[in-house]
């Protein structure tokens, strides 16, 4: 496209595009096109003037060539623009602000005094009514302050002051709404970028496919613990579906062929095939927005405290106003106290800090479902790990199958896989994967699982009772025995592996050794977590004691609990909380769910089961345990920032009041400074908490 260069500096270029009008979406197309050019660092496109500012690092010629090559039609096809940009939102609020300011100016200039006064009186009704409403509900809230300020001015016949006050309040409202909407939108677009994968049923096999590639009419397979990514209808199988993300009802609902299932719900048990009705589109973004709005109801207690503090300060402000009037008998000075209130600053700046921290954590592949969980992470002194999938690699492997009682090794693996495929746990996956690798098909065996408990599975295969699970489950609960004369062989099994025991009709048939290597960074991560102020790092596992203790020694945790049941994990967390500790739980499987919801903040490693992710308050997408350290630093930095904002707001505004009373600042100036400082601190709170060095250092 033809462009003229308006301003040219080394590494910065401002150009004018010679095109007709530029729409908002075209501006986005241009912006993301230029950003995709090699060497370009930042781009700003002004659609009104059809100008673009390009800051680049590479060669100038490359930028010029890219501009010359550009055309809207061509760039649109590249599909570079994300689904949601904040340009339209910014434009709407910019316009709102501009119109408000311009109306105010026009009114001041052209409207005759009597009409302006009448308008001021009419508009004041809203504020006075809200103030009275709050009083009626016996609340001394900010609305009372605003109503008083406006009402007093009107009563004094000082319509222009009343007008100014209302104008300021209106500007504040618009800015507040803008910043809030923008933070939510930023957060949502950052969070909705992650792509889910689903199992697509194609003829006789299943293919792991991107959700975006699924079209209406496709059939997808959902298993226990899996999230249903799209709306659709069940065509095969049965599942208990937890729809709490839609309805808030935590009891799962049974879904059979013909019933509808909805995106964002989780299959708690069972397996079904779904015929997709609606392809993935804006659904995910909307869901994320809804989730954020939901989580805002779970405000962090710091936010809550700010709101309460704001309202608690109101009586003092009112008292101060009355006192000032009594002492000085000067209405201007009295008004200057009223003009400054802490509340809107506190109510705006602190939620923004929290939202921005949530956005920043998304940048580190951590999604946080609400501010109060960040606060819990900052405060926590105890961190509990479930061993498998968190401290150890997410993908354990089968090292060895040791048959007992004259059974065939391959046959036993086939049987184990047949049972384990019903259970979404990383160890179960390892067994199924091992069978697949050895080409052992187990479809013909297909049997209905009788029950799945925390530590094992029981089923009927060819009229025989088959159980698989931990030592505790197999030998103590189910009273299985080791075949005669093979006790020595059993004792000789290497303790370096985790073990699964398979029994047929109450006799041990095989021991499957699972190799579950520690993550490389586990030891260092635990050390750093200690340094970050976690006094108590605990490891829990359903594994046997010997293996667990060996791992614990290597990693350097403070306490280890082996052979625990899911309820035990939850009970331990409850007990620690009762002792006054703040507890974080890190887990990945279905069996961690009770503990995750019991903890002050439950963290799921997102390679694990979908149900863990749904229940968890925080999800870490990365494979790296150091993300936990980043999360801790981030939340501590956030708490620091909240404290600082708090002190600054109270200090600054208090001095404004004092200056106002002393008569040094007139009411309008203090109102301006007050609003300016509020805006300033809100903007500051939108910036990142951790600088790049700090984040990459870990």
């Amino acid at each position: 496209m033809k462009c003229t260069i308006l301003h040219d500096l080394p590494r910065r270029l401002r150009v004018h595009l010679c095109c007709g009008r530029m729409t908002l979406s075209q501006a986005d197309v241009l912006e993301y096109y230029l950003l995709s050019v090699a060497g370009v660092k930042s781009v700003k496109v002004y659609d009104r003037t059809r100008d673009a500012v390009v800051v680049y690092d590479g060669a100038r010629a490359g930028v010029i060539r890219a501009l010359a090559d550009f055309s809207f039609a061509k760039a649109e096809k590249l599909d570079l623009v994300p689904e949601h940009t904040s340009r339209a939102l910014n434009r709407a609020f910019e316009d709102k602000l501009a119109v408000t300011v311009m109306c105010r100016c026009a009114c001041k200039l052209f409207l005759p005094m009597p009409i302006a006064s009448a308008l001021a009186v009419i508009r004041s009704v809203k504020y006075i009514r809200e103030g009275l409403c709050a009083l009626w509900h016996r609340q001394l809230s900010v609305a009372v302050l605003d109503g008083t300020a406006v009402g007093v001015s009107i009563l004094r016949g000082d319509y222009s002051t009343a007008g100014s006050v209302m104008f300021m309040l209106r500007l504040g409202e618009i800015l507040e709404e803008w910043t809030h909407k923008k933070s939510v939108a930023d957060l949502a677009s950052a969070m909705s970028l992650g792509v889910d994968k689903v199992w697509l049923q194609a003829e006789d096999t299943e293919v792991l496919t991107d959700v975006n590639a699924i079209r209406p009419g496709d059939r997808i397979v959902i298993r226990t613990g899996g999230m249903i990514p799209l709306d659709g209808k069940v065509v095969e199988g049965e599942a208990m579906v937890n729809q709490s993300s839609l309805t808030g009802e935590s009891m799962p609902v049974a879904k059979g062929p013909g019933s509808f299932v909805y995106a964002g719900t989780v299959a708690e048990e069972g397996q079904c095939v779904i015929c997709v009705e609606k392809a993935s589109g804006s659904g995910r973004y909307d869901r994320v927005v809804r989730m954020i709005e939901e989580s805002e109801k779970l405000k962090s207690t710091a936010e809550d405290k700010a709101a309460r503090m704001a309202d608690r300060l109101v009586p003092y402000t009112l008292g101060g106003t009355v006192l000032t009037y009594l002492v000085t008998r000067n209405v201007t000075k009295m008004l200057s106290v009223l003009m400054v209130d802490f509340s809107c600053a506190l109510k705006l700046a602190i939620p923004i800090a929290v939202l921005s921290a949530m956005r920043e954590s998304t940048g580190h592949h951590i999604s946080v479902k609400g501010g109060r969980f960040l606060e819990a992470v900052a405060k926590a002194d105890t961190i509990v790990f479930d061993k498998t999938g968190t401290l150890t690699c997410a993908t354990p492997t089968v090292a060895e199958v040791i048959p007992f009682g004259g059974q065939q090794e391959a046959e036993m693996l086939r049987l184990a896989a047949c049972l384990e495929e019903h259970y979404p746990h990383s160890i179960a996956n390892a067994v199924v994967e091992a069978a697949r690798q050895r080409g052992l098909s187990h479809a013909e065996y297909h049997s209905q699982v009788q029950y799945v408990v925390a530590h094992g599975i029981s089923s009927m295969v060819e009229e025989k009772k088959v159980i698989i699970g931990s030592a505790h489950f197999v030998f103590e609960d189910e009273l299985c025995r080791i075949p005669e004369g093979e006790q020595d062989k059993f004792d000789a099994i290497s303790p370096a592996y985790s073990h699964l025991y398979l029994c047929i009709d109450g006799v041990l048939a095989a021991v499957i050794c699972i190799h579950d290597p520690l993550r490389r960074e586990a030891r260092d991560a635990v050390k750093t977590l200690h340094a970050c102020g976690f006094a108590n790092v605990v490891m829990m596992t359903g594994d046997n004691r010997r293996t667990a203790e060996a791992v614990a020694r290597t990693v350097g945790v403070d306490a280890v609990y082996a052979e625990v049941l899911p309820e035990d994990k939850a009970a331990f967390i409850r007990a620690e909380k009762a002792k006054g500790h703040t507890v974080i739980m890190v887990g990945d499987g279905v069996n961690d769910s009770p503990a995750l919801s019991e903890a002050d903040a439950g963290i799921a490693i997102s390679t694990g089961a979908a149900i863990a992710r749904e229940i968890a308050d925080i999800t870490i997408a990365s494979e790296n345990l150091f993300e936990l350290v980043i999360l801790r630093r981030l939340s501590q930095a956030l708490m620091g920032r909240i404290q600082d904002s708090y002190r600054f707001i109270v200090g600054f505004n208090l001095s404004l009041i004092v200056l106002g009373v002393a008569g040094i600042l007139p009411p309008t100036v203090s109102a301006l400074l007050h609003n300016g400082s509020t805006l300033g601190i809100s903007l500051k709170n939108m910036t990142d908490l951790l600088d790049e060095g700090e984040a990459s250092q870990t």
Partner: protein
Amino acid sequence: MDMKKIGLFAAGVLFGTAGIKVLSSKDAKKAYAQTTAAALRAKDSVMTTVTAVRESADDIYAEAQAINERRAQAEAEAVVEDTSGEAEESKAE
């Protein structure tokens, strides 16, 4: 006095019938639309001017930064480096 009252009454009747008609007539609505459109255009032109001013201000700021960078560079180039090999402990930079 009487005449004034009658006059006011007549004016009121006239406004209540013909006046309202005129104010809500199709032509009047067109006039309102035109006025509103003019106001919106005025707003847009103000916003465009504001944008242009902002761009120019950004240009000036960027240019100022470039000037300072050049100065700093020139100053750095004006220093003759010490290559004697006698390292000064205090000014180890």
